């Protein structure tokens, strides 16, 4: 059952992205930035966490999840250590994924020959 909800919710989030791309002059980079900010704002409103609980990877695979984990990290550290947590908490939960993207991204690009 978890697969069905992941497929439906993940798919629908991408449909919204596709519509924004097709109906505006935004590039795909703009759409990705928009979704990260939306994920962050929805987290602030307390709406993204229930979506992750409900849809699993359907909510945690789209880039909007970056906004969710970065904002959640800030909230967690604000509670634990106070004002410094607003900065120190940013990469607490999302740091692993960003490190993976930088490390694997660089590694695979090194191993690949440029086209043409």
């Amino acid at each position: 059952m978890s697969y069905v909800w992941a497929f439906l919710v993940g798919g629908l989030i991408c449909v919204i992205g596709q519509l924004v791309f097709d109906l505006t002059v935004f590039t795909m980079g703009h759409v990705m930035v928009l979704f990260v900010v939306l994920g962050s704002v929805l987290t602030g409103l307390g709406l993204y966490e229930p979506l992750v609980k409900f849809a699993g990877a359907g909510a945690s695979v789209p880039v909007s999840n970056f906004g969710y984990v970065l904002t959640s990290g800030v909230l967690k550290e604000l509670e634990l250590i106070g004002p410094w947590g607003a900065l120190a908490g940013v990469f607490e939960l999302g740091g692993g994924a960003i490190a993976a993207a930088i490390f694997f991204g660089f590694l695979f690009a090194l191993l690949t020959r440029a086209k043409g």
Partner: protein
Amino acid sequence: MAQTKEQQKRAQEEYQRLARRHRPRPPLLRNALLAFLVGGAISAAGQGVLNFFVAQGLPPDKAGGPTAGVMVFLGAFLTALGVYDKIGQVGGAGSAIPITGFANSIVAAAIEFKTEGFVMGMAARMYQIAGPVITYGVTSAIVVGLLRFLIAGG
């Protein structure tokens, strides 16, 4: 007239913007359906990875990190093989919005600028899309996090 690469690129981007404004309406329904199928399939694959980590004994709220790591790895790997760009031609936002698309944006840009050197080419340009995503993500997280903490108390 001699143009720097930067100017050429900017002119190209400007042209693409103009062209997008004047092109015939894209096949909305078809694009949306393909984005749904590809994005849904990638999310379902992510669910498989998540379920695997949970089956290994990780609590569900701790399994998201390693799942993201595996998906990023797969996105980077498939980009290096040249497969992900093909998926992207079909899936549009369905392949760009998932975290695999984030990895793809890094690897694709890094490969493209490899000829300009390993430092100011590859390492600098690989953040062409990832940079804005991280910058706006971090800024938004701090602002939204502080606002929520001050208004709702965490």
